[in-house]
């Protein structure tokens, strides 16, 4: 059997068309990997710079406060380190989610989780507006390794495998092959096995290189995830090659086989995911995006209206308190208007944003369940999960962000409300963000479901392949 595989490998690599195809796939994989590496490097350097700025900014404020209290410097009108309405309101603390195991596989557009947020006592919802797309719109995504492995990998598998027997049958070689004493099934499986190995070496090799480059500091986390992904890649490619085996077992010529595999690819990779996306959108409709925008605007305009009413009523009751010089309100504006408005805004918008995220999670759950009908969809969802795109990761991160913001506000808001000066102790004991990873059990349950969604069609396709090839006629 090893001798047969050795000969089949030789036959495969000696054909220029095969080597050319693998070279094209190698270039495409490398481009996808490069995009992922570049994006991840930019994201990480932005996070590192933001965290460093944050540390130095607070250190500078604290030092200035120490000098103020010692009477070494005089306080200016702006940038005071002890007035909370100036020192705290301007501080946006950078926070980042726990890094995804294999972020390099996917590019930012496909990943709804923000990789860097700035959290202050003001609302985060104006920067992070709750939106939700039709899930099928995110299926193709940018040109990254997820795209190459999900869509192009199967296409190359089909191109390399559609005629392993059909062409021999068409050209009259199959009879000579079959007369040698090995079954056509054994020969076809060896040929497809060789193609499987070549595709795994190219795509898996490039992905492995990209993972080593980007995750060299935490290989203990990245390598098991990579092993899982490689297994999923094998299941996915195995399915497509098994399909070519079914078609090779039946097709009388290469042209018929090529039409059949093209039809199957379009059906399972394009039509079925789009159909699933539409069905999921119908079963779990997201809150309307327009409604979201209108909601934000109505909250904003309601708060403005109430501000005008309260201010007008106050000044009509206390006309002596009207500001004499324009700008006198400046010191009070943040405390009497901006902060309360922020709290009111958050109270109104947070449930809506949570509803959006819940809908996103519900859609993802339905997509995963439906991915049993499309191995491409299952593999795409699994790859993006390992790359950090699962909405559950976003929910876990934003929950920890909201928890942190509540602690941040709790630490400062009594000083802000009373406009009491900050002390060095306030700086020294300020809350710090603690990254909370998703529960591992929940993550691996998702991955396991997607693995099952890849295994089931593979087993069916292998059974079909065995049946078709064991009955395959040489002519």
């Amino acid at each position, binding site marked *: 059997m090893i001798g047969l595989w050795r*000969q089949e490998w*030789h036959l495969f690599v000696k054909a220029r068309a095969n080597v050319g195809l693998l070279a094209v796939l190698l270039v495409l994989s490398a481009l996808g990997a490069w995009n992922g590496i570049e994006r991840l490097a930019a994201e990480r350097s932005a996070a590192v710079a933001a965290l460093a700025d944050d540390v130095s900014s607070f250190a500078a404020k604290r030092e200035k406060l120490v000098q103020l209290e010692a009477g070494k410097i005089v306080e200016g009108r702006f940038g005071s380190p002890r007035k909370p309405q100036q020192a705290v309101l301007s501080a946006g603390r950078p926070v980042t989610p726990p890094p995804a195991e294999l972020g390099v596989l996917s590019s930012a557009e496909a990943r709804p989780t923000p990789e860097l947020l700035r959290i202050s006592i003001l609302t985060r919802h104006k920067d992070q507006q709750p939106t939700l797309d039709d899930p099928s719109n995110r299926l193709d995504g940018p040109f990254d390794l997820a795209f190459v492995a999900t869509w192009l990998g199967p296409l190359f598998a089909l191109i390399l495998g559609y005629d392993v027997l059909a062409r021999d049958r068409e050209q009259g070689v199959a*009879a000579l092959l079959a007369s*040698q004493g090995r079954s056509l099934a054994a*020969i076809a499986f060896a040929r497809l096995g060789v193609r499987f190995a070549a595709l795994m070496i190219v795509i898996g090799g490039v992905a492995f290189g990209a993972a080593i480059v980007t995750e060299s500091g935490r290989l203990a986390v990245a390598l098991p995830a990579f092993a899982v992904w490689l297994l999923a890649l094998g299941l996915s490619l195995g399915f497509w090659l098994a399909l070519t085996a079914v078609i090779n077992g039946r097709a009388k010529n290469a042209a018929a086989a090529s039409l059949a595999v093209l039809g199957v690819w379009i059906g399972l990779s394009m039509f079925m995911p789009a159909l699933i996306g539409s069905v999921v959108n119908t079963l779990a409709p997201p809150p309307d995006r327009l409604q979201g925008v209108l909601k934000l605007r109505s909250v904003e305009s309601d708060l403005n209206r109430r501000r005008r009413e309260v201010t007008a009523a106050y000044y009509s009751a206390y006309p002596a308190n009207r500001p004499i010089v324009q700008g006198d309100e400046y010191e009070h504006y943040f405390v009497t208007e901006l902060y309360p408005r922020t709290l009111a805004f958050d109270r109104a918008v947070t449930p809506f944003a949570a509803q959006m995220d819940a809908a996103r999670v519900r859609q993802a759950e339905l997509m995963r369940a439906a991915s049993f009908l499309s191995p491409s969809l299952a593999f795409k969802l699994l790859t993006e999960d390992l790359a950090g795109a699962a909405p559950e990761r976003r929910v876990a991160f934003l929950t920890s962000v909201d928890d942190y913001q509540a602690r941040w506000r709790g630490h400062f808001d009594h000083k802000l409300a009373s406009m009491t000066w900050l002390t060095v102790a306030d700086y020294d004991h300020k809350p710090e963000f603690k990254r909370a990873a998703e529960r591992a059990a929940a993550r691996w349950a998702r991955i396991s479901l997607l693995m099952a969604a890849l295994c089931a069609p593979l087993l069916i396709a292998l059974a079909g392949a065995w049946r078709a090839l064991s009955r395959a006629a040489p*002519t």
Partner: protein
Amino acid sequence: MLKAEQLHKRFGDHVALQALDLQVAPGEVYALLGPNGAGKTTTINCFLGFVTPDGGRALVAGVDPSLDAQGARQALAYIPEQVNLYGWFSGLENLAYFAELGGRRCAKPELRAFLADAGLQADAFERPVSGYSKGMRQKVGIAIALAKDAKALLLDEPTSGLDPRASHEFSQLLRILSGRGVAILMATHDIFRALDVATRVGIMEGGLLRAEVATSEVSAAELEALYLETTRVS
């Protein structure tokens, strides 16, 4: 070595074989003559296990290919009318590939010897087969049979389209193989080639073996007359 017992085969309404009895002993060359559709290729396909007979049985070294196709194929070699090989492989590489399929891993010198024994010019060994003539590809087919060391050889119109010199060389190779004890069953339209190389000739028509003669007992003219007479009857 090759034995057909009451072989029947029908494709829809067309009867391809009727009660065919045939036997080819080791070292014997048996030529099957007959017009197109007489059942020659179906007979060969029954021995190869490509076609399952509706009745009777074909035996290759005692193995029924309809029950154990791989077992039967281990014992035989097959050369079709057109020996189609992998064009991007050289003759040597094609031979290595098919020898491996036949269960033999041969060293390069051994493979070269098989090609040389089959009559292929040495300068063609390493050239891609896409540039080979039909005769050269037939020689690689013979080399594959030699490498397999098969006990029986099935040939389906092997000299069709070959020039006289190539046909002559091919006949000589068959004689060498039969001299080594290989049982050879050859379907052909070429009466003179059959007379030249075969020990016995069977004439088929309409799925029936209508006549069988030893080539030592007939001249070319007699065999041609017998062929015309036999195939006219139907």
